[in-house]
């Protein structure tokens, strides 16, 4: 077993003294309250977090609402199948991913090393990125013109100009939404994943 041999280092030694002060302060002044402990022990093993349950519920009820809407609006059968198929994929993947992450948290958090935990979380992040790129965005691209077309055929005597008047605002709205989404969520997420990957590689190389 190797022993610590950095005792001559000033910064680290100073940090060790500071660490001792912190530990002493925490020992004397911090109290884990009963409410915190109760909350921890009442969280069932394998139980999903509230926000995960909420995300799954949103996907499910969103699917029901949209399925009812496209049915009641009497859109073409093919369009209804297309929308329902996407909502179904969305719901199933959401459940699988939430369960997978939850399962990892339950089983591995206590025994896994930091590197493995990071790799697992990175895989989860990458999956979400790929899902957005290869499922959600293609769906939106196909959905908007198709939805406009479905609306147009319901209007008697509609022309190409009517179709364009419906399509252009929808495309502008989608483009604004996509830009905000990309800058606010997607790019930061990709940056974080790349950063973490670099750290993992650097750690393994050292």
């Amino acid at each position, binding site marked *: 077993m190797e022993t610590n041999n950095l005792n001559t280092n000033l910064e680290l030694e100073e940090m060790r003294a500071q660490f001792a002060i912190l530990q002493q302060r925490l020992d004397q002044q911090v109290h884990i309250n009963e409410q915190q402990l109760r909350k921890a022990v009442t969280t069932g093993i394998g139980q999903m977090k509230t926000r995960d349950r909420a995300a799954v519920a949103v996907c499910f009820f969103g699917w029901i609402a949209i399925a009812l809407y496209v049915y009641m609006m009497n859109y073409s059968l093919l369009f209804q199948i297309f929308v329902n198929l996407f909502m179904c994929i969305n719901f199933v993947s959401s459940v699988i991913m939430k369960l997978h992450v939850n399962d990892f948290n339950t089983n591995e958090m206590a025994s896994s090393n*930091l590197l493995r935990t990071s790799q697992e*979380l990175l895989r989860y992040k990458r999956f979400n990125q790929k899902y957005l790129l290869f499922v959600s965005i293609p769906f939106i691209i196909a959905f908007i013109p198709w939805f406009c077309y479905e609306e147009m055929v319901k209007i008697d005597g509609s022309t190409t100009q009517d179709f364009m008047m419906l399509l252009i605002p929808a495309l502008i709205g989608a483009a604004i939404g996509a830009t905000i989404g990309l800058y606010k969520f997607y790019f930061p997420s990709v940056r974080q994943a790349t950063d973490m990957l670099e750290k993992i590689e650097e750690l393994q190389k050292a």
Partner: protein
Amino acid sequence: METTEMEFTALVKKHKSTIYTVCMMFAEGDEVEDLVQETLINLWKGFAKFEGRSDAKTWIWRVAMNTCISQDRKQKMHKNSTSSLDALGLVGKDCQDETDDHQIKMLHDRIHQLGVFDRAIVLLWLENLSYDEIGNIVGISAKNVSVRLVRIREQLKKLK
């Protein structure tokens, strides 16, 4: 309260400073308490499997760090203005306490400038764990730990 819950409570109370130390070094201000809560939940979930099979302190370090490392990325973009000491109500009252506060803040600032893995390595080193134990928790070899520590030392010198 059941026996298991009593054992868990006793263990957590005994090692509270370890839990808070890790959470303070991976989070800022008000986020510390949330991270402590998250760590307690993960400790409880793993408690049945733990059964004293390894050293309790090492196990707590492992769970706390795994929890923190997974939370860190979610909240990385979020900046918090309250200091961790303020948020935990740990600000000193007399002169000696003020000096200690300064020392704790220095430690906090230094550690927060390191990447997540380096942060974990240096904390485990400060806790006096052997290179083998550190390597085991982080997932790298003991040799790799010593290399990282040399690099961390260089990094800390530059930060001064």
